[in-house]
């Protein structure tokens, strides 16, 4: 079993690709850079495939399989090993990351072909793969944190890829700083984990928490702190503001980092820490509330955006909210399932949007598109499939995962009707804004200057990944299909060891896989006519009514509810509120107190002041050295006299 005992190979391959391209790629031609970048990821994918084969041969009691490579640091009782582990959850994440990452690498060879800094882009992209794989394979919180921060770094580098553009550089900084706020909570959470359990190793923590009860207050604090990190990384309320701005980066980056993989790291982390979260019901409720509110809230912003990538960005925030909702109501498997299907269809949506932008010669405003379906058919069909999937139309991947989430929110162990309603409302909005996107982009009359914009289908290396992802957007959810006819959800069954091994005892009866079903046909009918499906179809129809049947309705509606429309168009003014409440006061304090006050006043004051004192006293003292021999003699005399008096005072005793 070679790979299983050398898990580090999976990390070493993309790292080597990043290093080679980063160091030498500048002088190489595009095909050479391509072969290094795509080659390293292809090898990674093959290594993952071999790993999965070997993994399937392992006995259940061997899991999770841990590979401990070296001791990274030791400080008293604090010991960190560079350890990687493989279990079912890791396998799912590895497959998603390496496969979607591989497709996006191939796509990028087409999309970035005309861009400067080609080698730099692929070096960053490979580096991102390295950190993301580190994150999902880590066997302790510190190694996970390395991956966690590493993907954040790559995100920053790639958002600001066109760093000469000020908005891109600013967006990079915004993403980095905003996620750092969450990471502060994560770091404190890790420290609290160590203080509580005496270890940062997953296996040790989980065994300890299931063997010895820990006070719920401590667990809740830990979970909330860890979740703070997830809020930043996975762009949830209130730290979601960086993700829409992150669309300044190249589109493949938006697809890979800001839709399919990195932003789902928070969901993965919550699912990974499930033994802790499951024992902290208050933290779970917070996760669910944040998820559900984000899912609904960002969907409302998505309704009115006109930039094609901004719509997808808010949609991503919304879908991530669904994943957290799933975790929060205790259905981690559904959350990871949605993570996987979302990686397929949202990755596809972004890549297709990239293809549209490519075809339009850089135009991102949907109001200046229209009627593209005939001209770029492959892009159109693949994007339509992805839209059907995200909207939750039965048969497509998103239907199964979203249905499971809403089902868990309605009748799961921690069901909550209000959250379910928010989720359903969000699903309706999702369907509406996604079909609005499709109708505005591909249907109707062209709204661009047909003489100037030469619309063309993208090259093969861009369309083939689209088609592969389209297939996955259809079939990627069918693991769960048997459940609809009273069978088993294979995805949930596959992951169940991860989520049941250290589950709290009272959560056991929640597993209802074996419950007798009334009738297969009835189940299917119920699922197909469930509320989520109805609202999805309604969203589709309303979008059709608005943007195809009566194209002037949206304008009239916008005028009649002008206030609401402006509010949504300006994203609830959250950026402005943050600027007024946080950024500007912070800048004011930094400028006037920290800079002019403390730095210039105190720190520079101490330094310059001591110099000034030295110079002034030196100026006075140099008068002593007058060059006048007699004055020297006088000083000597004074000194000698003073010394004599001192000696007499100290060493003579008065004799009575």
């Amino acid at each position, binding site marked *: 079993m070679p790979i299983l005992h050398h898990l580090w190979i999976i990390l070493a391959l993309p790292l080597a690709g990043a290093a080679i391209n980063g160091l030498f790629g500048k002088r190489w031609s595009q095909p050479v850079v391509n072969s290094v970048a795509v080659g390293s990821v292809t090898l990674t994918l093959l290594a993952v495939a071999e790993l999965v084969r070997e993994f399937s041969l392992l006995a259940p009691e061997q899991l999770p399989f841990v590979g401990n490579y070296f001791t990274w640091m030791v400080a008293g009782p604090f010991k960190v090993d560079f350890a990687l582990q493989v279990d079912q959850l890791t396998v799912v994440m590895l497959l998603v990351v390496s496969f979607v990452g591989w497709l996006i690498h191939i796509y990028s060879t087409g999309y970035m072909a005309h861009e400067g800094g080609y080698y730099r882009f692929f070096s960053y992209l490979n580096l991102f793969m390295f950190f993301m794989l580190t994150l999902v394979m880590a066997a302790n919180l510190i190694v996970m944190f390395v991956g966690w921060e590493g993907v954040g770094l790559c995100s920053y580098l790639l958002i600001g890829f066109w760093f000469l553009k000020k908005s891109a550089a600013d967006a990079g900084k915004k993403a980095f700083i905003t996620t750092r706020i969450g990471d502060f909570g994560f770091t404190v959470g890790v420290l609290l984990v160590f203080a509580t359990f005496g270890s940062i190793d997953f296996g040790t923590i989980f065994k300890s928490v299931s063997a010895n009860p820990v006070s719920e207050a401590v667990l809740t604090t830990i979970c909330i702190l860890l979740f703070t990190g997830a809020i930043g990384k996975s762009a949830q309320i209130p730290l979601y503001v960086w993700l829409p701005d992150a669309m300044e980066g190249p589109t493949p980056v938006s697809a890979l980092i800001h839709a399919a993989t990195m932003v789902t790291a928070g969901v993965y982390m919550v699912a990974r820490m499930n033994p802790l979260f499951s024992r902290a019901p208050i933290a779970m409720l917070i996760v669910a509330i944040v998820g559900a509110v984000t899912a609904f809230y960002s969907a409302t912003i998505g309704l009115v955006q006109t930039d094609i990538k901004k719509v997808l960005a808010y949609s991503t925030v919304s879908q991530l909210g669904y994943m957290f909702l799933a975790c929060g109501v205790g259905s981690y498997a559904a959350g990871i399932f949605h993570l996987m299907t979302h990686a397929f269809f949202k990755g596809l949506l972004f890549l297709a949007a990239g293809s549209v932008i490519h075809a339009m010669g850089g135009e991102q405003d949907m109001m200046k598109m229209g009627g593209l379906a005939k001209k770029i058919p492959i892009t159109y069909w693949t994007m339509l499939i992805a839209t059907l999937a995200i909207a939750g139309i039965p048969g497509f991947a998103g239907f199964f995962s979203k249905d499971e989430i809403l089902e868990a929110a309605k009748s799961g162990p921690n069901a909550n009707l209000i959250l379910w309603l928010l989720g359903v409302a969000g699903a309706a909005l999702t369907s509406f804004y996604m079909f609005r996107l499709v109708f505005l982009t591909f249907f109707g009359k062209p709204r661009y200057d047909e003489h100037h914009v030469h619309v063309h289908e993208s090259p093969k290396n861009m369309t083939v990944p689209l088609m592969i992802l389209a297939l996955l957007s259809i079939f990627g959810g069918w693991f769960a299909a048997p459940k609809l006819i009273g069978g088993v959800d294979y995805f949930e069954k596959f992951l169940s060891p991860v989520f049941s091994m250290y589950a709290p005892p009272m959560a056991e009866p929640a597993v209802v896989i074996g419950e007798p079903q009334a009738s297969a046909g009835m189940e299917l009918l119920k699922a197909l006519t469930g509320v989520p499906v109805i609202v999805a179809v309604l969203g589709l129809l309303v979008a059709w009514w608005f943007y195809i049947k009566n194209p002037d309705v949206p304008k009239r509606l916008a005028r009649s509810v002008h206030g609401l429309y402006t509010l949504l168009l300006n994203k609830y003014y959250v950026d402005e509120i943050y600027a007024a409440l946080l950024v500007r006061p912070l800048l004011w304090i930094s400028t006037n107190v920290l800079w002019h006050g403390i730095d210039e006043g105190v720190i520079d004051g101490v330094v310059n002041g001591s110099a000034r004192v030295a110079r002034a006293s030196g100026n006075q003292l*140099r008068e002593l*050295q*007058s*060059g*006048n*021999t*007699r004055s020297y*003699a*006088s000083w000597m*005399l004074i000194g000698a006299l003073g010394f004599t008096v001192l000696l007499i005072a100290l060493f003579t005793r008065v004799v009575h």
Partner: protein
Amino acid sequence: MSVVPVSYYLVLSAILFGLGVVAFVFKRNIITIFMSIELMLNAVNLAFVAFARAHNQLDGLVFVFFVIVVAAAEAAVGLAIVIMLAQHRQSLSVERVNLLKF
């Protein structure tokens, strides 16, 4: 024959030393200053000899010889400097010798 007490010698030594100091500080002529230095050295010599005699020990006498030798060497060097100064400055006043300063 009555012995002169050691304190007499010391008082004389102190008076001579004090005269030397006052002359050193207040006189302007370099030659005079030189002489005042010699006066101070010899005042000290007197104190040494007095103590040597009082305690019946040779250490003080040895010191005196050293001081005389050093004073002779110093006079040789010092008078050479004085001659050079007199040639350059056409004056023997120490007020004119004040270039070595900041």
